[in-house]
């Protein structure tokens, strides 16, 4: 199965291609690697969890916050996530977004297609219902970036 990647930023396109090259069970293992690789929160957030936004579309609790360097479409975006170890699927989704979107400009990030979660070949590995959580995270990231760059 090959999903379209030409409209994706390079890092995210690479992740989609990596998933697409694997068998379904191996995709789960890769998702687990992303779960393990999710960076820990820096102290300025781990000590102030109230600064993070909850994502209720996920089955398990996850919180995220974005930072934008400056204003306008060329400002770089940084992403921070917090999700418990007992929620590896949710952590895996966050890990994919952390690696695939980190450092993009606001303009690039807002252009990421909303359906990207369904291009990972995970529908049959984790079920479409669970993937809604990832779309929920992307939606919230975009909203935060829109708010932070328009001000």
């Amino acid at each position, binding site marked *: 199965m090959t999903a379209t990647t030409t409209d994706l930023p390079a890092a995210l396109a690479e992740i989609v291609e990596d998933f697409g090259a694997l068998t379904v069970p191996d995709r*789960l*293992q890769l*998702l*687990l690697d992303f*779960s393990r690789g999710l960076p820990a929160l820096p102290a300025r957030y781990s000590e102030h969890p109230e600064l993070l936004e*909850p994502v*209720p*579309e*996920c*089955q*398990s*609790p996850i919180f995220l916050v974005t930072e934008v360097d400056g204003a306008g479409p060329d400002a770089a975006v940084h992403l921070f996530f917090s999700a418990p*170890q*007992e*929620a*590896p*699927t*949710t952590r*895996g989704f966050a890990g994919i977004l952390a690696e695939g979107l980190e450092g993009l400009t606001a303009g690039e990030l807002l252009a990421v297609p909303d359906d990207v979660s369904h291009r990972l070949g995970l529908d*049959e*590995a*984790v*079920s479409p*219902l*669970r993937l*809604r959580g990832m779309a*929920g995270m992307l939606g919230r990231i975009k909203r935060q970036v829109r708010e932070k760059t328009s001000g």
Partner: protein
Amino acid sequence: MALPHDTDAKLAEYAHPERLVTTEWLADHVKDDGLVVVESDEDVLLYETGHIPGAVKVDWHLDLNDAVTRDYVDGEQFAELMSAKGIGRDTTVVIYGDKNNWWAAYALWVFALFGHPDVRLLDGGRSKWQAEGREMTTDVPSPAPADYPVGQREDAPIRAFKDEVLAHLGKPMIDVRSEPEYTGERTHMPDYPEEGALRGGHIPGAQSVPWARAAADDGTFRTRRELEEIYQEEKGLSPGDDVIAYCRIGERSSHTWFVLNHLLGFDNVRNYDGSWTEWGNAVRVPIVKGAEPGAVTVGAR
């Protein structure tokens, strides 16, 4: 070939103690022939992070649901799944999972639809096993395919459909969802996405007993006495009653079905798996909003 029952004193109080095992019993028997341990979780990757040695994974979304019809797998698909997991008809199956065995109880209920003779839950589930520092592994077993006969799914005794619930209005019903879902303030649990139901509320006459009231702090089931206080004394149910339990898609109510049926010995309990995602969207069925069970409208249909 079934394994011996757990003779633990707390379990012995229940109506059907043979449906539960303690973590201690499982640790003693985990390597026995004739036993297959099954993990079934809400989080589809949790098994991969580590599981009880020898345990196989059964996922509700991917293994137990039909891919196109909103229904469970059929006899052939179930036999295929059992075979792949190394489970024969005589195998003793012990199921455990995350979140107070919520999804494990759901899997057990599906096993019951196919009449698997010896299927048990691990009291306290995954969290208790882990909290006790017992062995976990990431090694995935590759069981030799077992011979599992293709049988018919027997829905009628333990599964209710919408028309049966309509005909049941006025008889005992338990809504096991959270309080805001019951009153109609929300259509999913707090902190979960609002999904898929056009109206919030409950089925007329249904009493509210959130499912997790049946679980103690360590994830084990409450004692028989404590459960009797909730379901029999507080809610006035009797073991001979014809009871239907429901939630949002039938997963949390499987947990309550297990409690009423196996722990308290109610022999006529059905799980309405269509639950609120069907009832809350269905045309011309009555609902009630607010904290009271509400009256059943005469001639409701």
